[in-house]
């Protein structure tokens, strides 16, 4: 039985905010099932006493002096935006209508 059905892929695509057509869902389900089957072995080679590593280097918080530094000009930033108005990004309606 496959680990990933087309319904699973549709749910994941919705979580990832990617519209997929029926053909893409079908193809991705097959491909991802094969990939998941191949990589699932990782859980069998580690034991509970192995710590997880999220980063190659030991990291600590990095602070800088609390001084104002130059920022990009607003016009330069908005020049690459799909839509802008009054010095701001113009975006579609963000709340669904009731």
């Amino acid at each position, binding site marked *: 039985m496959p680990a990933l059905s087309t319904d699973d892929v549709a749910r994941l695509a919705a979580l990832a905010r990617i519209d997929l057509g029926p053909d893409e869902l079908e193809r991705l389900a097959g491909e991802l099932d094969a990939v998941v089957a191949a990589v699932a072995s990782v859980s069998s080679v580690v034991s509970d006493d192995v710590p997880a590593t999220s980063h*190659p280097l030991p990291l600590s918080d990095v602070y800088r002096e609390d001084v104002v530094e130059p920022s990009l000009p607003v016009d330069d930033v908005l020049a690459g935006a799909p839509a802008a108005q009054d010095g701001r990004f113009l975006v579609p309606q963000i709340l669904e209508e009731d």
Partner: protein
Amino acid sequence: MAPADPRARPGADDLVRAGAADLAARLAAREVSSEEVVRAHLDRIAAVDGTPGDGRGVAAFLHVSAQEALADARAVDARRAAGESLHPLAGVPVAVKDVVVTRGTPTTAGSKILEGWVPPYDATLVERLRAAGMPLLGKTNMDEFAMGSSTEHSAYGPTRNPWDTSRTPGGSGGGSAAAVAAFEAPLAVGTDTGGSIRQPAAVTGSVGVKPTYGGISRYGLIAMASSLDQAGPCARSVLDAALLHEVMGGHDPRDATSLTDPVGALADAARSRDVRGMRVGVVRELTGDGFSAGVSASFRASLDLLEGAGAEVVEVSCPTFAHALDAYYLIMPSEASSNLARFDGMRFGLRVEPSEGPVTAERVMAATRGAGFGPEVKRRIILGTYALSAGYYDAYYGSAQKVRTLVQRDFAAAFEQADVLVSPTAPTTAFPLGSRLDDPLAMYAADIATIPANLAGVPGMSLPSGLAEDGLPVGFQVMAPARADERLYRLGGALEALLEDRWGAPLLASAPALETVPARRPEVAPA
């Protein structure tokens, strides 16, 4: 008018075949101007590069900055004429992978979702190239968002391998590797998340280095997997790679993961050519099964040369490397699924409205990402979303992070026994275009030997060790402990000298001549 033949202008072929160190010396001696050097490379690009997607040419470039590069070159020439003190590489041109943002120059990361986007700022490494007076020739082709091992996942069409244009140049940085291998640029910048500098270097007969994680700033790199991504140099010689590495490396306060160490005397290490007493550890798990006969024979021959030069070759075992590929294909998509959330159609790049129903921000995001991302990017984002989802997180992402710990422990133990670790860079020579596109697992296997270094953050280099029986280049990988990048250059420089003594010339001198293809771009005005 026919595309410019690089041989039409006296000395042009000589200029494109010269290495960066050689060009730097000739520029400093005023034997040649930066404008002449840049013009020779632009002519070469016009002659052999073609257009991604048209089925001909190397297609290493997504964008060529001809006028800007010439203007920068003239500015350097003027400063030199005025007697200013310049950086040693001033006037030497460089190409930059399209995943690195460049102010005023289009940057797409090989994706339709960023088509036409012009960044408002420079990556730190680009600032450093500009500060050194290095003209930027253009932006190189790549797998979309650096996801791939063949450059075929570029939304604009594949790059072709200069040794055989029916084959891939590796990936994701196939454009940068092919640009230097095809003599279109003396130097190029790449990024390496699982092998995207080293594997293309291997299959194009060029040199590529992934520095220690944090060695070159990530500020201004379009992120795929932030705990793995690392920029580095692509070149035709170990010394040239060291020179470019030195320009770009060093601490950057704008990258919280940037190392504070100085970059080190890498060029000196490349020139030292002394490996006497150096312990060279052959990684048992990265040799033998899975590596083609031609690749293995070339690798063994290089070990013999090193031993003859006084290195001590030992075998080391890193058993958990067998699981590194699997762990990588959970960690990388997980991080990518988070990083690529920024491509939402709101602040930059493509915006697509849904074909029906209400036009809300959320529906615009989904429509934009559905239309703007290619199949491999969708595959990895959804795989990452799955690996991070409730119920699977511990089994997949959590376990993969534990494998990462085991890989680091294997490296630490191996570096007790050896100063550097070595293996073939890639299991095979360049594979034919299209041969792995429908089989993601076969594509992923191309990076089996390069991924462990990314998981552990250690530096790695690929340099050419010769040709396999199919006449295609083989890469030799060197890995060193974190912050010991100079060992890569010491061993790499020595091995390169030994090999070139045997060959009588650099390997790329034996690459076949490239077909002249129709230029897509307006020709550069004659000098």
